């Protein structure tokens, strides 16, 4: 969490500190009320209603404890008595299908069944939670424990092809290090060749900047190193832009965001997306920018839900949105109340991908748009789910979600990640396979596709694991029980080798040899203080880590830390140099990789850091002889909601924060110009 987020939480805390708690809720009155209850309650009589507040008692009867008294079939059958005396492990909480095929829905009624099941599960959990008190690990489950283990027997199926060419060394590009130096920078992306939207982009001459109002994109001409706002694209007052793309080859600007109708006004009055699921939608609007001074709208598409992410590959936009079904409002006879729509039309049953468990409450909607026909959606699918994350490789979309095995705070007994793979090509989406593995993923850098296989590094309870899955998503190789009592902070894969950082006191950087996908093995481990939150390959045999330094005595983070790892010998990774920015207490790079400007070709490392005096922008260079050199440390004058971006065009870097753009020369690092939008 960054400083600004912490500030808002602190603000809420401060603003609510003075709130008086009603007299009835004071401990003394609670005690009295409970004692009175005891007097009235006779042994053998389980429960009575007490007037307390005024609506409270009635509510208990209606929903809370009434459920308790009427154990349902399926709960009692399991033999797990509400008393929860059995301390034994009971396996996973929800049954996860062992099928390798993604199921499609036959009918909307079938879809509705999952929603009902989800609701039922919620109620049962509430009941069990109360039943089983402090033993979080017992919160559960009702399903036989063999579930997770049972299908392991077929894990080796489907593994034949694709075993040979693993020795092929991939270029640095695969790991995200663009060694070719363009004369302008591009958005730092997860997967080379798969573009991602952002809030600042450039085509080499114009800067495109999302303004602070979230509605307008300013087009700024940077000719002759000066800056001039030349034009703008206005999404209109009912829209809010999340990010956008500039595709110089096709002369297109693609804006993605959300369209809210009259939502804002209603939201303030207490209505919100959940009382009318189709009130707001995610939209993509394509503009022709043959003349950047006169953008012309060419078409728009929409889909239900709120924007979650998008990608751009080969002239196709792939857009993801999350559509949550609010149980309070649904009716089995009205599919519109629980089925998402694309351009106003409900998604067909057969395009809804059912989850590997029996419940769901949301959809991740994926659509594809051909930029040559930007008014049409070429393909659309809805992944029915309880909420997950997306990783997009060069060929496939992986949707992964975590099934927790208990619902208590701070007492995890482990979890399983389920994963569904949908291929994409030229705007066509196709279900490929599904699978699962133990543990959860730190972020999308912990999952990586290479040569058709998928490699993941996971944290499960107090240990970590590496798994390799084949193209059918069967686990073919694994290393378990790594780094006990630590968790993964960052990871990066390149070709046959994976690197990941775990942290408790020191920062072990592990290197994993994945050249035989059936037998991954740890080949190196380096312990240094602090931890890296972001890893980026930096030229040949070098890995850059950006993270925090930690004082080894007090265990307090005391500054942002840059580390260059020498990875020329994978079995003996060394710390080549470190640089600590003291009193810089966080950087956005830790949770937003697009905030990093890393270009080994031009030898530029740029990012913003928070200090007591506000935000600064830093530029570093690195070479083997001198190590890290800090070339620039400049105060950022903008102060907006969104994170800072550094973008360069030729020899000028533009630091963009909100509506303020500050330009510095990359030759002498002096300020060249600034512009307030």
């Amino acid at each position, binding site marked *: 969490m960054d400083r*600004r987020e912490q500030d808002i939480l602190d*603000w809420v805390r401060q603003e*609510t500190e003075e709130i008086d708690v009603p007299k009835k809720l004071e401990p003394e009155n609670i005690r009295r009320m409970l004692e009175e209850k005891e007097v009235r309650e006779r042994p053998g009589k389980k429960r009575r209603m007490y007037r307390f507040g005024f609506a409270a008692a009635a509510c208990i009867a209606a929903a809370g404890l009434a459920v308790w008294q009427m154990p349902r079939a399926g709960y009692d059958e399991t033999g797990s008595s509400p008393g929860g005396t059995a301390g034994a492990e009971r396996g996973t909480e929800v049954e996860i299908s062992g099928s390798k095929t993604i199921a499609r829905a036959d009918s909307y009624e079938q879809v509705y069944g999952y929603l009902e099941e989800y609701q039922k599960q919620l109620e049962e959990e509430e009941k069990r939670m*109360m039943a089983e008190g402090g033993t979080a690990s017992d919160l559960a489950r009702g399903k036989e424990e063999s579930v997770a283990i049972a299908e392991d027997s077929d894990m080796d199926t489907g593994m034949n092809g694709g075993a040979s060419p693993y020795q092929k060394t991939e270029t640095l590009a695969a790991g995200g290090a663009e060694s070719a130096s363009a004369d302008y920078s591009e958005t730092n992306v997860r997967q080379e060749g798969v573009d991602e939207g952002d809030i600042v982009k450039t085509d080499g001459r114009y800067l495109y900047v999302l303004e602070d109002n979230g509605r307008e994109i300013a087009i700024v001409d940077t000719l002759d190193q000066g800056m001039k706002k030349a034009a703008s694209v206005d999404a209109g007052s009912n829209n809010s832009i999340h990010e956008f793309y500039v595709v110089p080859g096709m002369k297109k600007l693609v804006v993605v965001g959300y369209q809210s109708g009259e939502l804002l006004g209603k939201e303030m009055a207490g209505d919100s997306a959940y009382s009318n699921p189709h009130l707001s939608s995610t939209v993509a609007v394509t503009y022709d920018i043959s003349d950047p001074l006169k953008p012309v709208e060419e078409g728009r598409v929409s889909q239900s839900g709120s924007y979650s992410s998008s990608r751009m590959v080969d002239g196709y936009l792939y857009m993801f949105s999350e559509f949550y079904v*609010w149980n309070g409002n649904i009716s089995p006879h009205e599919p519109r109340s629980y089925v998402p729509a694309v351009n106003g039309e409900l998604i067909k049953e057969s395009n809804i991908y059912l989850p590997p468990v029996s419940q769901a409450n949301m959809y991740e909607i994926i659509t594809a748009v051909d930029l040559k026909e930007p008014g049409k959606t070429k393909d659309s699918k809805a992944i029915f789910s309880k909420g997950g994350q997306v990783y997009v490789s060069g060929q496939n979309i992986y949707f992964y979600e*975590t099934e927790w095995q208990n619902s208590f705070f701070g007492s995890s007994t482990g979890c399983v990640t389920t994963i569904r793979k949908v291929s994409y090509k030229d705007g066509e989406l196709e279900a490929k396979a599904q699978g699962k593995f133990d543990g959860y993923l730190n972020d999308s850098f912990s999952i990586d596709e290479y040569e058709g296989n998928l490699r993941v590094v996971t944290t499960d309870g107090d240990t970590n694991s590496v798994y390799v899955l084949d193209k059918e998503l069967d686990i073919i190789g694994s290393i378990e029980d790594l780094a006990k009592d630590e968790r993964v902070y960052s990871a990066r894969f390149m070709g046959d080798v994976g690197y990941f950082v775990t942290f408790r006191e020191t920062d072990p950087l592990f290197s994993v040899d994945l050249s035989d996908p059936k037998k991954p093995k740890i080949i190196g481990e380096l312990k240094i203080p602090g931890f890296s939150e972001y890893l980026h390959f930096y030229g040949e045999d070098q890995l850059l880590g950006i993270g925090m330094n930690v004082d080894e005595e007090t265990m307090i983070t005391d500054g942002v830390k840059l580390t260059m790892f020498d990875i020329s010998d994978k079995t003996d990774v060394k710390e080549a140099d470190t640089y600590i920015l003291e009193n810089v207490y966080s950087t956005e790079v830790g949770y937003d990789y697009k905030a990093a400007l890393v270009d080994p070709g031009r030898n530029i490392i740029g990012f913003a850091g928070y200090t007591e005096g506000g935000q600064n922008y830093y530029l570093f260079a690195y070479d083997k002889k001198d190590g890290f050199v800090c070339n620039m440390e400049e105060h950022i004058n903008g102060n907006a909601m969104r994170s800072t971006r550094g973008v360069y065009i030729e020899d000028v870097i533009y630091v963009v924060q909100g509506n303020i753009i500050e330009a510095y020369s990359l030759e002498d690092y002096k300020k060249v110009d600034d512009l307030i939008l």
Partner: protein
Amino acid sequence: MRCDAKTFAQMYETVYMDLYRFALCMMRSRQDAEDAVSEAVMAAYENIGKLRDEKAFRNWIFTILSNICKRKLQDAARERSRSNEAYSLIRQDTPEEPDMGLAVDVRKAFFLLEEEEQTIVGLSVFGGYNSQEIGEALKLNPNTVRSKRSRALQKMECVLR
């Protein structure tokens, strides 16, 4: 654990202010918040015998309360759609909003959020839980919690500015 009203009240005393403030931000009216906390207390006390460790009390009752708030909000939404009346007639926010119990800007900031976002922010502030703990409680990936929290706080910042 065995527990009489006095012991229960002692454990409750360590947590009740945070419980009430959390409920207030979720339910947005004094009465609804009070009802939610009362209900959580009743449910917890009924079942205290099954709590094995006093140390787990805070987490336990917070989880109970967040589920109760969630259910109450769902019931309200269901009721609203069933009766098909304007939300403003049913929700507690009459024009003068006499009984909100929350500062205007906090209220506005919370209004911008969806229920799940409210829960995440509320549990962060009043429960003091981190993204992993919240993920476990709400069945979300910690990374999802972080991104949802980040999005929620961005929305709230709109009101702050």
